[in-house]
């Protein structure tokens, strides 16, 4: 296993920039009722209970709309404002398979690849700690769409194959997204 040191590449600012860029690129795609681009919020429980932002995309004409991709960021920084927690960020790129994309309720499976990193505070003492780790996990979940398939609520649980200081084996996520492409941009 090659261990990456993400510190020089990763920052919350960079990841937010990627998410915002994807959202701005949406109008440049082919104006198409088959495209779905959703943004939303998620709450993920692993080492910490971390809220975050998620962007996912799918294309109905690609393999009947089964595959989807997702980019997500979650953080413990809000909790760190009130408690003595590590300031941890998880960034995930997911590739998933929606088993019943046309159904209101349907199961899905996905694989997450990403990384987790916590801030090294008091660097003069703890500067040598290994504060980042890769994430590789598999999940199964279920989604429910309503309001003309624009709003999706989902929940999943999964197992992480790589563990680090802030990545434990089991985790669960709930979230809700809104299809900004079909709901706002394409109208």
């Amino acid at each position, binding site marked *: *296993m090659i261990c990456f040191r993400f510190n020089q590449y990763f920052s919350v600012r960079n990841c937010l920039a990627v998410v915002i860029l994807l959202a701005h690129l949406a109008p440049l795609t082919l104006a198409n009722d088959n495209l779905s681009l959703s943004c939303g919020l998620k709450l993920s429980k692993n080492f910490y209970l971390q809220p975050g932002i998620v962007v996912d995309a799918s294309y109905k004409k690609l393999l009947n709309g089964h595959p989807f991709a997702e980019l997500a960021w979650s953080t413990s920084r809000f909790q760190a404002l009130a408690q003595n927690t590590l300031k941890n960020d998880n960034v995930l790129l997911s590739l998933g398979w929606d088993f019943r994309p046309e159904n209101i309720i349907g199961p899905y499976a996905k694989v997450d690849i990403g990384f987790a990193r916590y801030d*090294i505070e008091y660097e003069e*003492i*703890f500067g040598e700690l290994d504060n980042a780790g890769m994430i590789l996990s598999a999940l199964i979940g279920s989604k429910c769409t309503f309001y003309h398939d624009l709003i999706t609520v989902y929940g999943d649980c999964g197992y992480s194959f790589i563990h680090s200081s802030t990545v434990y084996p089991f985790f669960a996520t709930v979230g809700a997204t809104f299809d900004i492409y079909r709901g706002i941009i394409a109208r």
Partner: protein
Amino acid sequence: MKLGPVLSISMLIIIGCGIVELDKSDHLIDGYVIEDPWFTDSSYRVSLRTDLTVADREKPVIILVHGYGSSTFQWEEFAEYAENDGRILTSIILLGGHGKNVDEFKKSTWEDWGATILDEYRALVQQGYTHINIATASTGGTLALCHIATGEYDAHPPEHFFLVDPLVIPGDKLLTLVKVVGPMLGNSPRDNLNEKEQQYIFTNRPAETLDELYSLCKLVRSELEDGITLPSGSWMKIFQVKDDPTVDPASSLLIYKGVRTHAGKKIEAEIIDSDKHVFTSLSARSTVSKKDRQLQKKAFNEIAAKMLE
């Protein structure tokens, strides 16, 4: 960062094979032949020593607490160091449920483990010792933090706490699965102990005790997140090994963030350039380098110097 798939697959295979039985062989402390001398030798505890005088109560006394599954041997090197110095009294504690056999260990709870620490501390207070200190290894530190959080030391604060590789975040994250797979496994024996270590450290790790350990870790982590304040006048230092295979070194950062002195100041912490969990205990290890000895000696000198200030 640890790669989990090999361990995960191993666990699945073990689960498929059934429950892992307890090994109570005679050459293990887990069995019924070897027993920690703490049970028969009262000199381990200062409170039970009959050779000490009233004048000795002015000396600093340090309660030495070992870690999960270990025994009094874990602090014997420091006790020998202190005895050679002559100015410090050492009281080596055996955690409740430890040191006898694995059946006693299996029945014990984390409250039982910590009870003997408090028993000795209270006995020393009652006998009039005024310079009480506490040094812990691994889970001993977790217990000490729990006792501090619940105010056990508020009435007669220890002067110093020395935490060596204290456990809050386990190195092996599979410990978090103990509630799920523990009942199926029954036992998760260590496979990295040499023949000498097997006489001092439990080879078996019954699922019940791992569950207790993880519950204790979660409790202390929660207390740290809310903030732990040391008793008035107490001082604390963490010694954390950088490449600890048993305790995730991020534990030390969590403790550093979560604990404050009574005056609101930060505690002290040091990251030690070593890969030996509880680097202060070297006697039973298979390989010990010159650097290991130097790090141990440096820590011993620092602990003693702080107590004699």
